[in-house]
């Protein structure tokens, strides 16, 4: 069996399972964000009285932090009172950040667990060897009541990545390249394991970027085999090691598909409107005028991403016809950016900082874009209307490409910076 199957088998109290079967699993952690008051409404409609285990329930207010509308304020108000009444300790309010960053920081994510959240980017937690998957409100409500959910055991695709990245090329470029090659339907209903030396060489932040965007190829979950780097991170987050179970994939396991990529010669990549798999080298769209640049979200809002922007923009000014919105993915990242002096320098360079949260990534607030505008972003989706007007164009790229494009006012390969400024 594969490690992913072993996670599911353990949670289903079974020795052996195989792909295609429908099994019922115990859930280790659920997370509900502030887009989903319907979870509580469905829970009430199902005659729910007490959640099955308040220690295994997390609320994160990130999609509307702080509340931009009366409706979102009411949602957060009702969620707070539900959490308090149910004795749920893990309530991360508007001052904390994006769920997929906040939960690992809080030590709630660990290898071998099943984490179900009302957010499609829950695949992120494969970076820690967890089975993370997204659901909607009604599924989540039924877990609150029963502690269980049924799964169809997915087929598993192996994506093996070898080679060393060239300077100026980032983990985001790897996953955009893979998406461009495999398309948005490649992993529909399936699980994806990322492996190979290029993955092993990534830090935790880089692995999170890779697993985060696995959902964009349709994946139910993503997985990276935990190693020393994972354990070091978990220790720094005071994870309860009694819960940690690192499964190994059996040597005779047969993947449903195998894809190998060598990224030694990879150039910075960019997804052009309006699909995540319209991927070309940045050079192919060089010169496209940029109205707004965005660094943030569960994909591109970590210290590592903001550090890249700092290194590119310190002592400079962004183009006077371009806006740069930066949103640290969590309070902790915001504080670290202040401590290291990144925030001060980036604000001087012309960046607009807003409160940790999802911000304009899903077009709700804090920098949505107008008809006819072009946004180049370190976030994860470029569907029409994703970040504001349906008549705007969104380009997905690495934080380096975003920062350099904000500096020059048009889309630019970050490696050209030396010659052009």
């Amino acid at each position, binding site marked *: 069996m594969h490690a992913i199957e072993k996670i599911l088998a353990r949670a289903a109290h079974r020795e052996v399972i195989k792909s295609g079967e*429908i099994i019922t699993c115990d859930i280790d952690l659920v997370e509900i964000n502030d*887009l*989903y008051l*319907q979870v509580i409404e*469905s829970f009430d*409609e*199902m*005659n729910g009285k007490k959640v099955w285990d308040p220690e295994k329930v997390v609320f994160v207010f990130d999609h509307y932090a702080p509340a*931009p*509308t009366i*409706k*979102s304020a009411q949602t957060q108000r009702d969620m707070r009172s539900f959490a308090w009444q149910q004795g749920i300790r893990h309530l991360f309010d508007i001052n904390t950040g994006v769920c997929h960053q906040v939960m690992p920081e809080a030590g709630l994510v660990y290898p071998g667990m099943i984490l179900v959240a*009302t*957010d*499609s980017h829950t695949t992120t937690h494969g970076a820690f060897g967890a089975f993370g998957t*997204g*659901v*909607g*409100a*009604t*599924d989540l*409500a*039924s877990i609150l*009541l*029963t502690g269980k959910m*049924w799964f*169809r055991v997915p087929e598993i695709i192996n994506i093996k990545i070898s080679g060393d990245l060239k300077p100026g090329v980032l983990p985001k470029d790897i996953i955009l390249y893979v998406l461009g090659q495999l398309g*948005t*339907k490649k992993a*529909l*209903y399936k699980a994806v394991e990322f492996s190979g030396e290029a993955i092993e060489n990534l830090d935790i932040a880089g692995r999170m970027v890779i697993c985060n965007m696995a959902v964009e190829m*349709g994946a*139910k979950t993503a997985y990276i085999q935990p190693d020393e780097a994972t354990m070091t991170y978990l220790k720094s987050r005071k994870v309860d090691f009694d819960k940690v179970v690192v499964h190994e994939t059996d040597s005779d396991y047969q993947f449903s598909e195998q894809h190998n990529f060598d990224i030694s010669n990879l150039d910075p990549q960019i997804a052009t409107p309006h*699909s995540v798999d319209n991927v070309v080298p940045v050079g192919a769209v060089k010169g496209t005028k940029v109205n707004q640049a965005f660094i943030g979200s569960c994909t591109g809002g970590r210290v590592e991403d903001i550090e890249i922007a700092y290194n590119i923009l310190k002592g400079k000014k962004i183009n006077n016809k371009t806006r740069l919105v930066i949103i640290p993915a969590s309070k902790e990242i915001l504080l670290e950016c202040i401590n290291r002096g990144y925030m001060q320098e980036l604000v001087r360079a012309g960046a607009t900082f807003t409160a940790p949260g999802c911000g304009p990534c*899903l*077009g*709700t607030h804090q920098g*949505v874009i107008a008809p006819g505008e072009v946004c180049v972003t370190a976030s994860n*989706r470029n*569907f*029409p*209307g*994703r*970040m*504001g007007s*349906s008549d705007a164009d969104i380009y997905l790229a690495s934080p380096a490409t975003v920062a350099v494009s904000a500096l020059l006012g048009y889309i630019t390969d970050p490696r050209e910076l030396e010659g052009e400024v």
Partner: protein
Amino acid sequence: MKKVKGRVFFLGDRIDTDQILPGYAMSVPTCQHKNYALKGSSIPDFAEKVKLGDVIIGGKNFGCGSSREQAPVALKEAGVGAAIAVSFAMIFRKNSINIGLPVIPSENIDHMKREIQEGDLVEVDIEAGTLLHIDSGRTYELNKLSEPALATLEAGGLINRVRNILRERGELID
């Protein structure tokens, strides 16, 4: 729930959740979401055109993107009786079933798109897995839904299904 009858609306590949219900529409009161159904798609005035029972025939990876359950709810509340497509994104598919909106994959979408006109009447038999084109009398095969999916649709959604289970156990008194 067994049969749905209505007019056909065609859509292309990769109709994502932002096309079905744009992010900005999530800020309006829930009861108004139906007015924004498919606002970001090639049929922005869908909400005004759709009538109860109408059937969407889409392409590949219908519903990709966000996990927002409001997307299938907006379609259902607007009147959509069923959606047929080459394939559905995983979370969207399960959300739809959970809220009682039949979404059924089919390998015969190309035939349907060639032989059926937009606005024609069709009848979808959910349990049998067929789509009948009323004018021509032609029947198109749809994929069979899984046992849990059919049971959930039969109950009118997951909320009712859980309530039924609780009632059988004697844990829910109406």
